[in-house]
């Protein structure tokens, strides 16, 4: 598979100002700090991490909704290589036909004062792609593909449920037939039963329309279901990247191990015993030296405190940023689940 989007050493730093107007910049929040990743054509790349790890910022920086501070982003579009960071406003408008965003909150992401028809058709209209009957036909087509009733196009968003609104949001993102979609936690605001529907819808659409997804989420079960590969983010950096199966079953980074141990099991009696990380997530404006994770890692030693590990290959398509990745014996999702299942009854609850 060829790369659709190449991200090299992407950084997004937000300045911290003291004072409201004439304040001096006193530091930077390093929301994304040196991320390099390839997104392959037709895949779903999962991006997981705790709150504040920079997932959303990374997703938005790719679309230049948030301006990156540094790095390169190249989109490969039928033979052309587009340098996303070099685009001006006009170029951006053109590239947004090929890359779109699905938002987390289906309530905040739809203009309450526009009908569904206007919301979905707007991009076709303003980009001069279609108008009149052609526009209507395209809107109806995408709406049907997204499982909505074309008769409801004249309604306003408030008349729809959360799941339906998310379908509208998806239809809006897809109506220009983009190749690449950033899904920014598209299901985390939905009911569990609706989550599955939306995940399946995204899968179907991917097959039908040949889409590539960057799937940002924190629900590890959903990520396991939806994604081909998964990248784990911690404090603005990617600590591990692997095929979903490898990452879940043979994690190589202690942080991934901790995440895997926290996947809930559908057994009310099972006492979840996650690998507890001591301490707090460090302040992203003042990250610790050496390995970003060493302050909370139970395997850390002097080398980790001094030297920052690089995201290095460790197996077939498996990359990890840990000095001891090849030495550590870490438990994956299956071991954690087994441990839970085999725990003696007395240890339960």
């Amino acid at each position, binding site marked *: 598979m060829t790369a659709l989007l190449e991200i090299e050493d992407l950084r997004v730093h937000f300045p911290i100002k003291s004072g409201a107007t004439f304040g001096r910049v006193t530091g930077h929040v390093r929301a994304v700090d040196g991320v390099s990743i390839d997104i392959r054509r037709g895949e779903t790349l999962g991006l997981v991490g705790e709150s504040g790890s920079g997932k959303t910022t990374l997703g938005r920086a790719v679309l230049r909704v948030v301006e990156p501070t540094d790095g390169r982003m190249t989109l490969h579009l039928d033979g052309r290589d587009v340098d996303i960071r070099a685009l001006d406003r006009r170029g951006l408008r053109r590239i947004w036909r090929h890359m*779109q965003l699905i938002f987390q909150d289906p309530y905040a992401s739809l*203009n309450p004062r526009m009908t569904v028809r206007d919301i979905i058709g707007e991009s076709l209209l303003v980009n001069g792609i279609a108008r009149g*009957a052609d526009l209507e036909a395209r809107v109806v087509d995408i709406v049907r593909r997204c499982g909505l009733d074309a008769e409801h196009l*004249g309604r306003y968003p408030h008349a729809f449920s959360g799941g339906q609104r998310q379908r509208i949001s998806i239809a809006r993102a897809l109506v220009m037939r983009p190749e690449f979609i950033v899904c920014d936690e598209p299901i985390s605001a939905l009911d569990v039963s609706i989550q599955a529907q939306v995940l399946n819808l995204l899968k179907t659409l991917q097959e039908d329309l040949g889409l590539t997804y960057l799937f940002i989420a924190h629900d590890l079960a959903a990520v396991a279901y939806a994604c081909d590969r998964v990248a784990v983010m911690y404090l603005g950096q990617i600590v591990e990247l692997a095929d979903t199966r490898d990452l879940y079953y043979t994690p190589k980074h202690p942080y991934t191990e901790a995440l895997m141990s926290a996947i809930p099991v559908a057994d009310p009696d099972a006492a979840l015993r996650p690998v507890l990380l001591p301490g707090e997530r460090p302040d992203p404006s003042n990250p610790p030296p050496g390995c970003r994770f060493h302050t909370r890692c139970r395997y850390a030693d002097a080398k980790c405190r001094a030297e920052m590990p690089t995201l290095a290959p460790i197996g077939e398509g498996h990359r990890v940023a840990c000095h001891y990745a090849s030495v550590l014996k870490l438990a994956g999702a299956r071991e954690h689940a087994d441990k839970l299942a085999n725990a003696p009854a007395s240890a339960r609850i």
Partner: protein
Amino acid sequence: MTAISPTLGRVSGNFQRPDVASQWQLMWWRFKRHRMAVIGLSVLGLLLFISVFAEFIAPYSPLQRSKTYLGGEPMPIHFVDSQGGFHPRPFVYARVNKRDPVTLRLLPAVDQQKMWPIELFVRGDTYKLWGLIESDLHLFGVKEGFVHFFGTDYLGRDQFSRTMYATRVSMSVGIVGVTVSFILGTIIGGIAGYFGGLADLLIMRLIEFIRSIPTLPLWLALSAALPRDWTSLQVYVAITILLALIGWTHLARTVRSKLLALREEEFVIAARLSGCSDARLIGRHLLPSFLSFLIVDLTIAFPEVLLAETSLSFLGLGLREPAESWGVLLYAAQNIRSIAHMPWLLIPGIFVIVAALAFNFIGDGMRDAADPYAK
């Protein structure tokens, strides 16, 4: 966007659309429950009607002098005469001039023996409605004698007619002033809020500067800068613009703060990703989201402009005779002698109060109606 393909038109034709009230409808329903606001709206409607048809409603031209009725008191309308007889056509009692036996001054006196019936649609002074249609038709008048509901001033000019003409000028100063403020405030506040950064910084400091100057001295300074030999029309336009130049700051702040809050909303980001231009983003996505707040602000800004014009004219720095505005008319009631002898010269003041109150009530009602959390 309104174009609908024939196929879809058929689909929606079969489909029973549930009755969904639009936002404006909801607002109107809530507004109607606010009694004072509805009264305010009716009063405003009446004032606007007067402004539009001032020449027709006024029985006399504003400059015409009644030489036999100088400083005359208001003439009340009667249906019942002194003998208790009922007259279906209302009338005013005739006035005769009698010489005061002590001062030997000619003073108008009521002659209860003689009635001047008031008639509708009488021919009187000719005028040009809106400067276009020549006519001499007036809403009411008398064929014999004269009628002065609000009395006359010391020159014998009909106070009622002058107040009608003044309503037009004062209302239009208010409306034009508020409109210009609105346009200025939206554009300047829009630039500050939407683009932020240095533009925002400069504009906000400018607004703070303007607002920190005491208003009355600022008006005085600006209106003193107007050449004294300007015609009343030029002064009128200049005063209107002047009031707008100061009045936009409040609106600009509202627009800016709303834009700042809305700019980061997800639906705005989505619209940007859809390829919307800045103009479309503001006009189609941002402005409609806070238009209701703006309208409320406008109705509240209106009395401010109205009162500003009245104050300026009252101080003799705004419009001047022979132009009429409520403030100009009140200027005549400035000294204690006028008020003591001719208290009816204060009648235009009632119009100012009523207009300001009407706008405030409408603003109240609209604010409640636009508040989605109101019960």
